[in-house]
Each structure stands twice: as C-alpha cells, then as structure tokens.
C-alpha cells in the first residue's frame, strides 16, 4: 500500500497538500489543471522534491530520507527519458546495471523485454533514430527492467499523436497488469484513461480529492 499522509509541499508562494492511500497493484489517474501540482506530487514520491511535512510510505516503510535511486520507484518524464546518443540496447541495459557488461542472464532479460515491447528490431539503433512513440517504449522497457514496484508516469505520452498515445496507454495498462505494478499516471486527457484506472485523484489549487473509479 502506498500511503501519502498529510504531505505538504512548498511551492514558490503556495502550498500543496496531499492525503491519500493507494492499494498495491492499483492504477491511479491524477488529473487537474496545469500548474495544479500534479508533477510536484510525483517528484515528491520519486524523491526529487523535498516535502515540508507529512509522511510517504510504501508497504509500511517510510520513503523519506531515501535517495531517488533507493526508492521503490521508477518514473517517466514528459521528455528526455532515453539517452538519445546511446543505442536502444544500452538504454535498456542501464535499467539493470550501469556497468559495462551484462551477465548472460541479465542480457536475456533485456532481450525478453525488447521482445515483449516489440522493439527487438531497434535494439542496435541509436535512440535519435527512433520515433517519439518508440523512444517512450524504450523508456518504459528500462523502467520495467529496474524492477521497482511503483511506476510513475508524468505525461510521458502527451507529445505523441492520438493513435500512438492510445496504443502506449494500452501498453502501460498491459504491463501494469503483467508485472503487478502500482501505477500513478498524470494525464491531460483524463477521459482517455478513466476506463482503465482504479481511481482518480483530482488536484485543484493544491488540494487533492480522491475519487474511486466510476
């Protein structure tokens, strides 16, 4: 269970307050006007933003005080998720280890995820050669290889055309189910995803209201 208790985040001249819980294995849609504090919440969960007060815990253990790399969290941002100058294979491998060489069984995991995401053909290409949708597939693949139970998506598909976006959203749902993830998705087009999520968090001027799925 992800538990966000009375978390207060200081912004330039106002505060965000969050107070909700999410059962493990569920998918949460976060919606609200831009600038309302949606990304701020994800940054706080991932450890990129310090919080003023409150508690964030996962399965009963506090995440506060942990570095981003130590948290059970992988996150995709709006852009720059893949290292464009590296190949697809290299990008995926970084999800397992930053060392030069992977062990055979690690290599097998890379191959498997590439197959699952249908990017096997691209493995040796540089990411600059890929389309936006393919790049986000690589990013998603790497996030999965990191084997962290919480997946945070900060509108990673907002720049894609509608068809690709829908495909990617469906793919995320599939992965969410297959890997038993707990997923938080920020979206500007909440209507596209409302059908697949378990709950929706509506953020408005720093106040968050949790609504169960319709």
């Amino acid at each position, binding site marked *: 269970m992800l538990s966000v208790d009375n978390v207060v985040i200081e912004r330039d001249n106002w505060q965000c307050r969050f107070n909700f819980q999410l059962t493990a294995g569920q998918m949460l849609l976060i919606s609200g006007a831009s600038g309302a504090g949606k990304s701020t919440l994800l940054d706080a969960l991932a450890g990129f933003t310090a919080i003023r007060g409150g508690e964030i815990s996962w399965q009963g253990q506090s995440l506060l005080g942990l570095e*981003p790399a130590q948290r059970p969290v*992988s996150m995709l941002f709006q852009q720059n998720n893949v290292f464009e100058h590296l190949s697809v294979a290299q990008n995926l491998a970084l999800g397992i280890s930053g060392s030069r060489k992977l062990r055979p069984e690690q290599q097998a995991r890379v191959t498997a995820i590439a197959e699952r995401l249908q990017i096997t053909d691209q493995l040796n290409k540089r990411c600059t050669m890929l389309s936006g949708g393919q790049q986000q597939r690589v990013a998603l693949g790497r996030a999965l290889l990191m084997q962290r139970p919480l997946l945070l998506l900060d509108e990673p598909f907002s720049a894609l055309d509608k068809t690709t976006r829908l495909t990617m959203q469906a793919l995320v749902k599939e992965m969410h189910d297959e890997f038993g993830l707990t997923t938080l998705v920020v979206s500007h087009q909440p209507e596209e995803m409302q059908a697949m999520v378990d709950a929706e968090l509506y953020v408005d001027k720093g106040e968050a209201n949790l609504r169960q799925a319709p």
Partner: protein
Amino acid sequence: MAQRRQLTLQPSWLATAWVVAALVLPISAVLSMFWQASAEPMPWRWIGNIIQFTLLQASLSTLGSVLLGIVIGRTLARRSFIGRNWLIAWLDACFVMPGLLIVLAILLTWSPTGAVGQFLDWKFYGLPAILLAHWFFETPLIARVVMQQMQRIPEAHIKQAQQLGLTDWQMWRLLDWPAIRAAIFPVAGLVFLICMTSFPVVVSLGGGPGSTTLEIAIYQALHYEFDFYLATWLAVIQLAIGVLLALLILRHLLDSWGAGPINVQRSRPELTSTRYFDGLVILVCLAYWLAPILGLLVKAGWQPLLDAMSSAKLWQATGQTLMIATASAMLGVMLAIGLQAGRGRFAMFVGYTVMLVPSMMLATGAFIILWRYGDALWQRLAAIALLNALMIVPFAIKLLRPAKNAAQARYGRQMTMLGLSQWQRWRWIYWPKMATAIAGALGLAFMLAAGDLGAALMLSSHDLNTLPLRLYRLIGARQLEQALWVGAWLVFIGVMIQRLLAWLARRYHA
C-alpha cells in the same frame, strides 16, 4: 546500496586531492627555502620600483586596451565593409596567439631596427614596448566583448534613435555604454590580471632592471642568482597582490569570460556622420594588427625557413613540446572533468584557486623540488607538464561547464533515479554528450601548454628545449626571421591538433 556508495572512489575527490597536492607541494617547498635561506640585505628600493612598475604597466595596458577596444568594437559592430569578418577573425586569433609571436611582431615593427621603429627616435625597450605588445593582444578581447554586448541592443532601439536624430555621442551615452558597462569591468579585471603576470612580453621587451615585473624578478632571482630568499619574498608579494585583486574582482571574473562563440554577423544601421572616423579606426586596426604580420611574411624569406627547418634543435624542440603539451592538455582537462564530476562546490573552488596563485611561485617550488631530488630531463619535462596542466584547469572548467550543465539539466533526474555512480554517469552520459566540448577544451589546452614559456624557462636546462624556448633564444639572438618561422610552425602544430581533435569529435558523433 548505501555501503557501496561510500566505498567508491569518487573522481571529484581524486581530482581535488591532486590539484590541492599540486598547489601545496611547490608552495611549501618555496616556504621551506624561505626559512632556511640566510637573509641578505634586500634591495627594497628596487622591489618598490618593480611593484610600482608591475602595477603601472598593468594599469596602462588595461586602460589602453579598454579605450582602444571600445572604439574598435563599436566601429566593427556598426560598420560593414569588405573583409570585416576576416578582420574580426584575425583579431580573435591575436588574443590566443603565443605571447612570443606577438613579441616578434612588435620587435619587427617598432624596435629601433624595426620597420617603423627605425624612423622613430625614442626609448623603445621598457614601458612603450610592453604596452604596444599588451595592447596588441588584449584590445581584441575587449573589442569582442563590446561587439557582443552591442549585439544585444534591440534593433528597434537603434532605429528609434536614428529617427530621433541622435548624434554619435548621444547614441554612445544612451544606448551603447549602458549595454557595455556591465560586461566591461569584469573583463578589464581579467585583462589587468593577465598583464600583471604576463611573462614572455616583459621578459623579452622589458630591457633593464627598471622595467621588470614581479613575475620576471622571481625568475631572475632564481635563475640568475640562485637567490631563494629574494625569490620567495617576491613570490609572496606577488601572491599577496594577486589575492587582494582577486578578492576585489574574483566574483565578477568567474562569470565574465569564455561565454562561448558569438556571431558577429549583423551590423547595425549605419550612421553617415561617423564615416570618416570609422574609416580611420579601421585603417588603424589594419596598420596595427595586420601590417606587422604581413611585413613579417614579406621579410621572412625562404633562407631562414630552411635554416629553421634544417636545425636538429627544431625537431628536438618539437618533440619535447608535443610531449609536454599532450600530457598537460590531457591531464589538465581530466582534472577539470574530475573536479566537476561531483556536485561539490569545493572542487570548483579549488579549480578556480589555481588562477590566483602566481604561476612563477609554483614554478619556483618545482625548481626547488627538482634541485633537491634530481633534475633529469624527463623529470623536468614532467614537472613542466604538471605545472601547465594546473594552469589549464580553470580554463578547461570554464569551457566544459556549459556542456556539462546542459547534459545535467536534460538527464539529471533519470541518472539519479537509475542510481548511476559518478564513473557511470561519465561513461554513459557526460562523456558522449560532452565529446565536442572536450575536444575544444583539449585543443585550447594544447595551444596554451605548447605556447608556455614561463615554466619552461624557469626549469630550463641545457638539454631542455621546447619550441617557445627555441623561439625565445632566437629572439634573444635577434634571429627574428628564423624565429618567425619557428613561431609559424608552433601555431601550425596547434591548429593541426585542434582540427584533428574536432575531426575526432565529429567522427565520434557520426
């Protein structure tokens, strides 16, 4: 996970430790000699004179460069003419040219035997010669900053001003000066610092114990007289002045220069009223900056070229210069990279501290260490390479930082989330993203180290022979034509290395 982090050797610590050691060892060697040396009566009057002269020449050099730079910068910024871009490129080149080549240009033009100097009845050596040389390479820097700032004035403002019929003076007061003001003072500070510690110019053109700077006096006390006591005193005085100056201007200094390439293509709408004045300024530019080099080439001839190229000493010097410059450039850039690897402010601070310590003090320390613990040729070469590497560090940091910051801004959060170590970040992200910047920094570092005279002269011995030393000796023997070819060869090598590095960087990206 937390344990592994602590055990990893961080590149930033390694680099910091290295730089600190490279600063502390020579300085403590100097201080140790200071306490041991028997105190002879100090030539205080002379020391007073050289402090005065050091500050006087640096002030006049700075003042002259600033005034000339503003006039020339304004003219070039607002006037378009055939060859304008070439002239600007040439002025840029003058700023990075090895100091000895500028000495050569000044000698061949203005000295009593030079093209113009022979018609002048004046005391050339000393202050006049030093100022002529310093203006030659500092004015282009100021002019560039002036042009850069003037580019920022919105074109609409200029058009408005012209509709209002403002005079040139009013334009200057209302538009140009406000745009230039903020940038000019830090650059002037930098120019002052460079002129205060300028070595090749003063050592070649000073001409007598009166027109000597602290930097040269340290070298002379050691090399001419074996007088550690005097040398240390002078180095301490120099350090004190440097620190004092740094306290005054350092904060501005750090963000003032190395702003990267700018595009000086567009010229502003022209004012007809300043036509003749601008024409005159351009003529002066051509005469002062271009004529000496053209004159050199005409005068140089092929026989001195043959003499220069057929000398075994040239090839020995080329070999030693390549060794020193390659080692210095690589080590210096590696240190700069290492210092920036972490987030620590301390490392950056250490990198910039190098700028404040007089290079002659470090060279003195190296001299003492070598004198005590052996002075084989390879030890001297290594010491010179180390000293030059240290001098390169602040420049390299300055050049690499924008690229590093860009990569950090783009991928910082991903790298953090993946938990990559400093080494891994360099391996996967910074190194490939910064390859072009690193190639550029290596090229400049190579040029700086290859052109170094100070450290080489301080540690020179009968078998040490670098291209700048060769150049210095030829200039000393007034073999100016041969010297010119050696200088051209030095520049050629530098340019070739820079192109090679740029090519490698392009290939890496392709």
